[in-house]
């Protein structure tokens, strides 16, 4: 098959299809105090939540756009053309057969019901602003594990939500955390009781279908003492010529000795702005792991953070970013070592191709009273051609001398000798490139559930088609 033929056959982006927009509630485009009030009213929220939303809205209004990162792209967002709330199904179902046909069809194409049966402990499927499907395995429920969409979480466990909401990421953290807090809808709410180990991953899948949609999910995960959970999220959207906005906030709380692993394979279509705030607090001897893959979107700005608050807490961040034509992945991580004997391990890998741009932006700080900490940072960038760009902005603020810090960074190009070697083994130049790229991301891929790893490798192989001019 010719290169162009192969490209036509697979499509530029295999999740770019869309379904008819059958909204049951759709707010007018644009944001106002009234829109914020209406969202809260529609959801019958307690007054305290309405109040937080309004405070956040006013903060958002007064907060200037960040003056760092890709200002040109950021300033290109037309906030007035965004739909801030769209309800596509009246209820969150726990049986796929009850989900409206067109929406069920979408998730079938994305393989979610199949994955659920095979290897997941629970699933939330969000379509536009709200979850349309939700279920959790009975055995997990019997152990007291709560896994709900965030709206249901607020309705059913208002006291837990009130206690933790906005405590890890205050609405005033940044302009987009303020926006999310004002208009949030959907997302996941998870509570794992003391000592409960949730072995099978639970998954949330976020799908934007409508044009000019704004999706603002809000996730709160609390792992009580000695418990553990493995949460996986995926996301896709149709390819439109107009742009959509995805701005989520994720808050994680790992109590003493608990472990939270949060894995993301972000594969938005390249018309989506992905501006997300993710942060976790790790208490004594707790572990928080961000396994963060950014493949899609037009602009991603995302720096999953861990606050190492208790002695002996550990943070692990393994991230990959892939930037193709017209894309900018501005990603990285922030780690705050507030307590002694805390450790962090960061591995960030990026690939830039066809003029794509990848930036690693990282901050590690170690507080004066945090003694005997260990920090290990490795950043590797791989450039596939001369037109692409990679930047690294690492910041280390280490306030005491007992800390052991290592930092390595490398920028490399795929060598002609590597390609030649693989081609002499019968692989076309494109296949050889895909092999090198998959190998480069392998330290990330091997951390994913196998099904995701296979999918990611396939995705990257498709990206390499037609890559060689």
């Amino acid at each position, binding site marked *: 098959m010719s290169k162009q033929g192969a490209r036509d056959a697979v499509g530029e982006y295999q999740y770019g299809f869309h379904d008819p927009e059958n909204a049951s509630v759709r707010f007018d485009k644009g944001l106002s105090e009234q829109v914020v009030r209406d969202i809260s009213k529609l959801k019958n929220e307690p007054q305290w939540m309405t109040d937080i939303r309004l405070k956040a809205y006013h903060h958002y209004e007064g907060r200037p756009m960040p003056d760092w990162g890709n200002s040109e792209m950021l300033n290109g967002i037309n906030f007035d053309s965004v739909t801030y709330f769209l309800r596509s199904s009246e209820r969150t179902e726990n049986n796929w057969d009850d989900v409206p046909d067109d929406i069920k069809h979408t998730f079938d194409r994305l393989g979610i019901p199949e994955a659920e049966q095979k290897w997941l402990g629970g699933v939330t499927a969000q379509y536009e602003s709200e979850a349309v499907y939700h279920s959790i395995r009975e055995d997990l429920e019997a152990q007291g594990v709560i896994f709900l969409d965030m709206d249901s979480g607020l309705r059913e466990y208002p006291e837990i939500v009130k206690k933790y909401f906005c405590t890890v990421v205050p609405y005033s953290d940044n302009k987009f955390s303020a926006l999310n807090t004002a208009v949030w809808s959907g997302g996941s709410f998870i509570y794992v009781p003391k000592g409960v180990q949730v072995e099978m991953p639970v998954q949330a899948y976020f799908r934007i279908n409508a044009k000019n949609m704004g999706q603002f999910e809000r996730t709160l995960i609390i792992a009580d003492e000695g418990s553990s959970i493995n949460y996986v999220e995926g996301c896709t959207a149709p390819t439109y010529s107009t742009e959509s906005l995805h701005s989520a906030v994720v808050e994680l709380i790992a109590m003493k000795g608990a472990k939270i692993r949060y894995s993301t394979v972000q594969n938005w279509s390249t018309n989506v702005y992905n501006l997300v705030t993710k942060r976790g607090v790790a208490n004594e001897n707790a572990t928080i792991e961000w396994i963060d893959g950014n493949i899609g979107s037009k602009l991603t700005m995302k720096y999953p953070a861990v606050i190492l608050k208790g002695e002996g807490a550990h943070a692990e961040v393994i991230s990959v970013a892939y930037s193709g034509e017209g894309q900018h992945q501005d990603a990285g991580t922030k780690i705050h070592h507030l307590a002694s004997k805390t450790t962090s391990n960061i591995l960030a890998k990026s690939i830039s191709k066809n003029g794509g741009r990848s930036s690693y932006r990282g901050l590690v700080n170690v507080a004066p009273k945090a003694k005997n900490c260990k920090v290990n940072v490795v950043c590797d960038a791989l450039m596939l051609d001369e037109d692409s760009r990679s930047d690294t902005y690492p910041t280390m603020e280490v306030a005491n001398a007992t800390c052991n810090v290592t930092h390595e960074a490398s920028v490399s190009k795929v060598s002609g000798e590597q390609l*030649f*070697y693989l081609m*002499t*083994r*019968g692989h076309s*130049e494109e296949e050889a490139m895909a*092999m090198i790229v*998959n190998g*480069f991301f*392998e330290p990330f891929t091997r951390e994913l559930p196998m099904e995701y790893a296979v999918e990611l490798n396939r995705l990257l192989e498709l990206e390499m088609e037609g890559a060689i001019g």
Partner: protein
Amino acid sequence: MPETLLLISDLHVSVDGTPIIKGLSLEIMAGEVHAIMGRNGAGKSTLAYVLMGHPAYEITSGEIYYLGIPLAELEVHQRAKLGMFLSFQYPQAIPGVQVGTFLRKSVQAIRGENAPSAREFRVELNESLKKLGVEKSFLPRYVNDGFSGGEKKRLEILQMLLLKPQLAILDETDSGLDVDALRTVAEGINEIAKTAGCLIITHYQRLLNHVNPDYIHIMIDGKIVKTGEADLALVIEEKGYDWLEV
């Protein structure tokens, strides 16, 4: 009638505008083992690279036919699919790609429709590992990443056994090997040589103690200056190359 595998006539090759091969002719028939000997810089490795189609090597004149097909028309991976194989002097590391996966994918790519099933492949792989005295712990490692010189060469020969080439080109496969490794590598070559043509590039005679070439060619300054039978290697071992220079 034996089939002509490779036919090179009056080949001239330049790298960055500098002529390296200056009028080389050679014919290899199926089942023949040819050795090319010569000092460093004689153009031996250039010949290996140009046969496989490395983009940095420019053919300025002359022709190469493989199985009657003009090689210039074929891309690198197409040559491989038609049964050409190069064992590299300096094999490349491919971090993140496991040896086992790499071998399976390469066998599929090259043997195509005739590729073994998953089970057959495992059997073949185990047999080849045993022949070369390679442990299974080799398989999950990343291709050539952190490999010793000997391990790299063993992996090259392992690939050769599994890919079953019709024409195997071995570029300094003997360099940096201890005696045991040299013997296993030679056994691999002998195995292949039962059916395939072999072109062994070396500047020592020691590999030739273990494999029996039909012809030995001496290459000096981009040309074959003398062709003889196996005993020519011994003469070179004794007298060096100086006596052959014009």
